[in-house]
Structures are given as structure tokens and as C-alpha cells.
């Protein structure tokens, strides 16, 4: 199934379009998305460790605007937001 990852904050550096499209197995979870993004970074940025740290310390947000756990099951064509560590104000 296809999933779009919307990029925010430091994760915007992962792609100029501010979006990554991933191909995932049915019943995939946020945990699988994390792995897939790291694979993508390995391929596109030669395993940039700083980028990988961002992914590992990020939360994820469902299309319904809830922060979701690593076990959250993704639906087909769902748009998921990556939420790197925050610091507004």
C-alpha cells in the first residue's frame, strides 16, 4: 500500500517536496514506517547519522491529527506526519 509521509521541522531536509512516498506491506505500523524512512535515508543520503537520529527521536501523527504509537496500524493512502523534537515559542 502507498503511504505519504509529510515532513516537518528538521525532517524537511529529507526531501525538497516536503513529502516522502513509501510503499508498505498491508497492516504496516509506525514501526515499519520508521524502518522504511531509515532505508530511504541510507539510499538517498548515504546513511546520514544525524538524519537517522531525527527519525528515531520523532513522533508520528495520523491523518486525524493524533500523535500515534509505534503499534498504530496505517491505512492505505493515509497521510502520516513525522514530528521531530519540537521547540517553539
Amino acid at each position, binding site marked *: 500500500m502507498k503511504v505519504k509521509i509529510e515532513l516537518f521541522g528538521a525532517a524537511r531536509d529529507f526531501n525538497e517536496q516536503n513529502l516522502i512516498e513509501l510503499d508498505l506491506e498491508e497492516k504496516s505500523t509506525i514501526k515499519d514506517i520508521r524502518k522504511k524512512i531509515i532505508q530511504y535515508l541510507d539510499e538517498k543520503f548515504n546513511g546520514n547519522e544525524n538524519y537517522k537520529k531525527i527519525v528515531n527521536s520523532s*513522533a508520528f501523527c495520523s491523518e486525524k491529527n493524533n500523535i500515534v504509537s509505534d503499534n498504530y496500524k496505517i491505512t492505505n493512502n493515509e497521510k502520516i506526519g513525522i514530528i521531530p523534537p*519540537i*521547540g*517553539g*515559542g
Partner: protein
Amino acid sequence: MLHTKIVDSKDKKLSINDAERFISSVEFGASIYFTGTVRNLNNNKSVVGITYDSHDDLVIKSFKEIYKEADEKLNIQDKAVFIEHSKGYLNLGEISIIIAVACKHRDQAYVLSRYIIEEIKKRSPIWKKEHYTDNQSDWLKGNPIVHEKN
């Protein structure tokens, strides 16, 4: 009474006057205006401006939750709260956030204002990219978001 907004700096600058118009009322005897502004030095680096990024829907949701919690945790029912945060590029000295609160008494207003900014720092998905005098720029590290488990 609550007003919340994410304001794109290309469209408008944040204004204390807007906040004052919203919270002013003869019901309230104490008002506090908190502003966050872009500072010229951070971690020994000379800053020329900051780009703010925001997950708008989640930020507004967090502002509403924080306001609601003030009823429950702080027991401050009668209040007016105005929260606006900028997104996009801001120059030195420009306002990134306004939190204006009005309550019946000063002790409530001080507690509420402080509570709101501290919770925003922990829970509202907003990011800063600092721009420096040497033309370099960096996303600030930040802290993992604090959230209710679903």
C-alpha cells in the same frame, strides 16, 4: 474565551493590539501580555533571523487542550486567552508568539500565562531554523513531543 491562530509572517505580523482587543473586559482585573521575540545570540552564534515551521492543525489542537486543562488543573474558569504563533521567516526583534491572558485577579493571570507557555514548549509541534551571520542555518534540536497516549 479563547482565540488561537497560526499567522504566516508573509501575510501579517503579530500585534499586541489584536490581543488587547480580544482580552479586554470589565469582568477582568488583571491582564498579562507575554511575547517571545527573535534574539540576536544563541549558543554563541550570531543570529540574523529564524524560520518557524508548524504542524498547524496539531498546534491549534494543543492550544485548545492547554486552555481546557487550565479549567481542570488550575481551577481558573473565568478567563480570556489569546494565543497566536508566527510561522515563516522572522527578523531579529520580531514577535514569534503572543500569549495574552485576562483573569479576575493577578495571581491567576500570572499562573495561567506561565502555564500556557511552558505547556506550548512541551507539546506544540513548532520548530525553529536559525539563520546566522555567516549565511549558515540550523534546525534547533528541540525536545521530543509530550503527548497523551492514544
